[in-house]
């Protein structure tokens, strides 16, 4: 089928597929377990806020309340570190990754389990369409979920520093959301492709992430991992925002201790390329798979 | 065997059984009815798995309200869906089920092998259930219901998913059940031919109410007023001769059969002479008998 025809079909074909996929992703039991885990830092953050809000010192400048810690430092600079650290575990790190693995399995593997893939393969829909639409639905749902979560968590954490603190560090939230989007574009397409080719996608995805992304990144040849490019972007943005971070904080050094961070624009570009190429690899797998 | 008096069962707004009254005799009984007619609800109530909203049920002479758990010692149940564990051997599973019913280990073992012998399971009984074919799985399902020697056996769709040979064998086994430890059989199925071959009595339930309860053999003996014929070569000539004789009656013709209304014995004579003069082969000629299909559709619709 020609590409032009696919584009023409997009407006009719995508909405029902998106509706179906997002419904399935959101009503999945495991999503709720993960969301509950994600909510835990929020709840605890709220608790922390109420307990310590009496201890902070505030000063009014130009009608805005600026909060300080008892040792006289800007409170929002303390809190932003907390936000980023916890986000690296939850919003863009481990939990988000579990969510990604789960989403990809629900989007692709479940079609094989439900045997609806057989029906799709006897219907006039191209494997690229099958794969891409599910992938895009997954990205949209995941990004909305995690973006929302990051925003809520950001507000809860920065609430201690008042409106001023929230506005002051808004760039950090933007960065986290940007990373969420790039993370999902890159990883979801790899996970989905793994789901097409392998019988036990959960295990393989996890092994891939652990051995390839976690252990390889921080080594000399880390440019072959997606994590490297993600870290490069975080590192670059943080330096631009005036944080005092070093490349080694994000493992962007080789064994000679030289900084090997990649330019953020190129990084973004590479992540997009990886995402698109795995679309093709995945749809190739769907079209060649027999029943 | 089972007496139900004014049984009502409601699931929230939905009424599954609506003032259901029946007296089921001993023997092999078939229960028919559309999906959601209340068949399985009735079976589950009779098993004591769920409670009726109101009404009284007596199973094997004992009131169900008082000892619904004790009564299960006398009842075997073969569910419709696949419900046997894969990671056990057939024998292991049956012994376990026997013990859960209250048999001691040695008796359960002896009984298991005896039943599997009757069901013609060979060495494969020592293999894992996951390697079994559909027919063998059905047999294990049947055997687990029989292992504690029940007086009454509920069979829910025992032949579904079986290929023709396995189905035939399963039906023969069910036919023999009455002889294995005098078991009465209550068979619920969607395949009407099964009821025809196996059962003594048939009960049709629709909309939670009893429609009919009758003897199967007498039901099927009834004949319709149509003769079905199948002929070979020269069928055109045969038909034209028939038409001359039967100009006032309507003859149904398809490329598979010809149907003529039955008036009296002369009808047969006309057909035979028509075939003789047209010199065509007369493959088949008989009055179509009432089948379970006709009766069922008549009752339910």
């Amino acid at each position, binding site marked *: 089928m020609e590409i032009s025809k696919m584009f023409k079909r997009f407006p009719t074909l995508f909405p029902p597929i998106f509706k179906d996929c997002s419904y399935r992703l959101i009503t999945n*039991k495991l999503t709720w*377990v993960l969301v509950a*885990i994600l909510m*835990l*830092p929020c709840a*605890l953050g709220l*608790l*922390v806020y109420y*307990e*310590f809000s009496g*201890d902070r010192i505030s000063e009014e400048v130009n009608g805005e309340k600026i909060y300080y810690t008892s040792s006289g430092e800007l409170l929002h600079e303390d809190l932003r570190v907390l936000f980023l650290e916890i986000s690296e575990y939850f919003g863009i790190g481990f939990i988000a990754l579990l969510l990604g693995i789960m989403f990809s399995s629900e989007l692709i593997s479940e079609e094989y389990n439900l045997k609806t893939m057989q029906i799709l393969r006897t219907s006039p829909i191209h494997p690229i369409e099958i794969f891409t639409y599910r992938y895009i639905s997954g990205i949209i749902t995941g990004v909305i979920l995690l973006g929302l979560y990051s925003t809520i968590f950001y507000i809860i954490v920065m609430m201690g520093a008042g409106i001023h603190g929230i506005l002051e560090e808004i760039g950090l939230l933007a960065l986290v959301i940007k990373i969420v989007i790039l993370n999902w574009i890159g990883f979801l397409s790899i996970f989905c492709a793994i789901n097409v080719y392998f019988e036990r996608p959960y295990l393989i995805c996890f092994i891939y992430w652990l051995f390839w992304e976690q252990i390889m990144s921080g080594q000399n040849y880390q440019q072959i991992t997606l994590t490297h490019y993600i870290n490069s972007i975080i590192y670059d943005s943080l330096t631009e925002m005036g944080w005092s971070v070093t490349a080694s904080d994000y493992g962007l050094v080789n064994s000679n201790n030289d900084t090997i961070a990649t330019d953020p624009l190129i990084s973004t570009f590479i992540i997009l390329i990886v995402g698109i190429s795995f679309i093709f690899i995945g749809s190739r797998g769907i079209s060649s798979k027999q029943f | 065997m089972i007496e139900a008096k004014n049984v009502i069962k409601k*699931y929230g707004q939905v009424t599954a059984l609506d003032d259901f009254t029946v007296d089921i005799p001993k023997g092999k009984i078939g229960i028919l009815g559309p999906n959601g007619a209340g068949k399985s609800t009735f079976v*589950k109530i009779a*098993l004591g*798995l*769920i409670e009726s909203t109101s009404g009284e049920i007596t199973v094997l002479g004992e009131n169900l309200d008082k000892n619904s*758990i*004790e009564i*299960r*010692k006398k*009842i075997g*149940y073969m*569910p419709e*869906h*696949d*419900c*046997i*564990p*894969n*990671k056990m051997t057939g024998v292991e599973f049956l012994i*376990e*089920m026997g*013990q*859960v*019913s*209250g*048999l*001691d280990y040695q*008796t359960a073992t002896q*009984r298991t092998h*005896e039943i599997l012998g*009757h069901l013609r399971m060979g060495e494969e009984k020592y293999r894992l259930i996951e390697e079994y074919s559909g027919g063998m799985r059905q047999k294990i399902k049947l055997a*687990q219901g029989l292992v*504690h*020697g029940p007086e009454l056996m509920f069979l829910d769709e025992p032949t579904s998913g079986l290929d023709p040979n396995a189905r035939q064998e399963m039906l023969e086994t069910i036919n023999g059940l009455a*002889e*294995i*430890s*005098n078991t009465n059989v209550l068979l619920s199925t969607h395949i009407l031919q099964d009821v025809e071959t196996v059962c003594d009595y048939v009960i049709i339930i629709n909309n939670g109410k009893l429609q009919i309860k009758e003897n199967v053999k007498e039901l099927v003996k009834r004949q319709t007023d149509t003769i079905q014929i199948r002929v070979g070569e020269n069928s055109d000539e045969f038909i034209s001769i028939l038409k001359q004789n039967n100009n006032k009656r309507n003859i149904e013709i398809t490329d598979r059969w010809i149907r003529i209304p039955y008036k009296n014995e002369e009808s047969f004579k006309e057909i035979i002479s028509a075939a003789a003069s047209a010199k065509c082969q007369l493959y088949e000629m008989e009055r179509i008998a009432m089948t379970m299909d006709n009766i069922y559709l008549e009752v339910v619709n």
Partner: protein
Amino acid sequence: MKNDAKIADKFKDFKPNLSDRRNIILGMGLRGFEKLFSLKNKSILFLIGIVYLWTFAFYLLLGQDSYPCNTVSEELKTCTHLNFYGDLQYGGTRIFLVLIAAVASSGLIANDLTDKSIHLYLSRPISRIDYLIARIIPIFLLMLTITLIPNLVVFISQFSKSGLDVDFLSSNMWTLSNLILQAIFYSISYSIIGITFSAAINRESLASAGFFGTVYGVSLIVEIFYGLMSEMDIENSEYILLLSIIHFLDIISYKIFNVDYFVTIFGSPEVIEFPLSIIIGLYVLLFSSFILLVNYIISKMEVTK
């Protein structure tokens, strides 16, 4: 011999002699326990082996003298039997206990639910609660073998170290009974949690992952936040410890010994007090709701299929 020729009847009448419900349940439970111990379950045997090795290496070989533990001192090793359930770095086996409970209990009901054989069990002459009890027995017994027995061995070794002194026994009567009570408490609690997960998540591997992840993972997160909050000197921060089941159970087990609770994961021991009524009330509420949930799940299955 002429008259002895015989043809057997095709079918023999079978008059079953069925035992009552109590025996059936006990038999089911014991067979389930046997199965958990069979060679097929290599992972469980392996974990049990580790627990024993760990216990013996830690408490018998490395040894220590002061026993029992009446108050919490700086020296944690004096509280041997309580430490047994603590975190690894303090010599405890908590992670293994949770792991064994997760792995062993996950299949008990989940397998019956996946292959739907639960319908067959429920059509036997036992009630739903009977079935649940029969399914809890194996995991309960398994937990006893890894909570009670190692602790008893430690007790006996202490006893022999004291030179088989009868005074040691009489002065430690309460310790011994508390030890047994505590082991039973842990076993029954973890069994109920395991059964709940097994019934709620009806796939074996997911159930065990869910059990471990929820119980252990939540305890870690709670612990992190507790650390954070106590650093900030926030009042009543210890109440968030009740969010984690592990901590909750530990609190009760310390109550059994009439010892104040202290945190062990991350950071130095710290004494925390809770009112007894809150804890017992919460426990009863939590575990009865677990049992009701399982009962509800099974009863729902009965009706639908």
